[in-house]
């Protein structure tokens, strides 16, 4: 103890006289700062390079026609409309399933659950659900929905699989949004005789709806990018649909999807023109990033506006 104190005392003294110790200390500080900054930079540079390179390579094919035409000649030409539409279907249906369940689960965890073993197990289950590998979700979807429930490989089975997979996203963000509503809001409501549910319905949810929305948007981005869970539950390499038909897929049909299409054209189809997979990758990336940016923008706006 005394040596430690002594050390500290020498350090404090050294602060005022520029000794070798102080110089070394400051040099270490500068080096550490530079190393950490370089590490951070090294994580960001690939991101910029990748996005830039993909976009550059995709330039020859990117056009409105690419988005709104169906693929032709064994997916070696034409656009990606079938895949785009499939992804929209999958996202909307899985959202319709996951959002109510996820929001209610978060309401339970934040408003009803007491600090006991059950709550702990629920939280643990949410963390674990988020950690289950996507391919295991695929196996689950195949075993539970396609085979056991007898839905067959279809948009419905794939969407349900995606819904369960992205549930932790919506639970986590909704929980955060609910927790941000100050407790006095609730107490004031209880004090005028409102029940627990009335308080949630009229005070807690309206005050956190935009926060919940951020989570929903984030979930859209996660769902749109997933490939493995839909590979064996409903997405196919190729399916012919009519151009411009918004209702081309039925609930029990198989469909194409953007993420799956990227996998297909880059690994399964020979002699694809080089720019085509790049175009698909850029559209997928742009969709996901735009949705993410929207979610971030909503969050930043909310934080600036919050007045409690």
């Amino acid at each position: 103890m005394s040596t430690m104190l002594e050390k500290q005392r020498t350090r404090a003294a050294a602060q005022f006289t520029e000794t070798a110790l102080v110089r070394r200390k400051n040099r270490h500080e500068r080096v550490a700062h530079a190393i950490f900054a370089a590490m951070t930079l090294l994580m960001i540079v690939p991101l910029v390079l990748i996005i830039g390179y993909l976009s550059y390579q995709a330039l020859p094919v990117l056009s409105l026609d690419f988005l709104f035409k169906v693929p032709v000649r064994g997916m070696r030409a034409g656009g990606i409309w079938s895949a785009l539409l499939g992804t929209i279907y999958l996202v909307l249906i899985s959202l319709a399933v996951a959002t109510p369940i996820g929001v209610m689960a978060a309401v339970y965890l934040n408003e009803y659950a007491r600090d006991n073993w059950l709550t702990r197990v629920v939280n643990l289950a949410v963390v674990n659900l988020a950690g289950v590998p996507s391919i295991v979700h695929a196996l689950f979807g195949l075993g539970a929905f396609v085979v056991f429930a007898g839905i067959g490989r279809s948009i419905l089975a794939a969407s349900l699989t995606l819904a369960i997979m992205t549930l932790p996203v919506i639970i986590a963000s909704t929980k955060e949004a609910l927790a941000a509503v100050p407790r006095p809001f609730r107490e004031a409501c209880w004090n005028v005789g409102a029940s627990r549910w009335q308080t949630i319905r009229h005070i807690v949810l309206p005050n956190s709806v935009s926060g919940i929305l951020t989570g929903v948007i984030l979930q859209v981005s996660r769902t749109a990018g997933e490939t493995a869970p839909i590979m064996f539950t409903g997405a196919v390499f190729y399916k012919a649909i009519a151009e411009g038909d918004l209702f081309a897929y039925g609930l029990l049909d198989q469909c194409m999807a953007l993420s799956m299409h990227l996998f297909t054209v880059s690994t399964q189809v020979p002699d694809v023109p080089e720019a085509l997979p790049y175009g698909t990758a850029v559209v997928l990336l742009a969709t996901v990033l735009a949705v993410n940016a929207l979610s971030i923008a909503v969050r930043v706006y909310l934080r600036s506006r919050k007045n409690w």
Partner: protein
Amino acid sequence: MARRRWEIMIEVLIEWMIRLCGVSAIIFVFGIFFFVFREGAGLFFSGRFNFTQFLTSIEWYPTSQSNVRYGALALIAGTFSVTAFAMVIAVPFGLGTAIFISEFCEGRLKETLKIVIEILAAIPSVVWGFVGLTVMNSLIIRLFDAAIGLTVLNGGILLALMSVPVIVSIGEDALKAVPDSYREAALALGATRWQMVHRVLVPAAKNGLLAAVLLGVGRAVGETMAVLMATGHSVRVPTSVLDPVRTLTATIAAELGEAPVGSDHYQVLFIIGIFLFTITFIVNLSADLIVRGIRGKA
């Protein structure tokens, strides 16, 4: 009065639904285990499957006509090598970035960096896989004069970039959880930021940082599309980082399409699934227990 009773009934109903959804996560986790195991159980309990062979043999011939063998050791080695290589990069860089964002940045820069890391996390795994297949592949062939660029190195770098955001965000949370009084005490003694970080913050946040690393490992082990597209397809134990390998996840993704539903081959892929589920479950559980550990003490 009648309306009141009706309202109460609705309320009771809704509250039960909320409770049901609340425990839904538990139901789903058990459901995943149950249904994946159910599909693989037929083979698992039949005499045709030998669990010791599964773990110790490198002979993976699930479709052999004469002598079917399910030795997953090469696949396990594949997953292990790619994950280990990814962690060699991701752990120092992830923790370094977490420290930089949490302790060396303020205000605008901090917010911007957090958003960039969030964007890095948002890139779909199939896009990473595509990058591995095209950009990284030709880069590795050119730089190392290798015959093929789809290797442990390629997959490892991709997985590192994919697990860094996990490590950064959890690691940053862990550093944020250290009370400011620790920082103030260190600085008041004349410590530089670096001294404060490595003498005070890292020891104080060590459990949270360990949990961050574990969750990064979990992410890397479970990743499918990127490794499917970027590590080549050779079932063998790698001897260098320039060897192509195949991971457990990639094997399921690559072979499930060809295996007829209900066949032995199909079932063994579900057994691999349960094996993966068990690994990630243990990793996540330990991460959770480690984090709870600090909260319990604090």
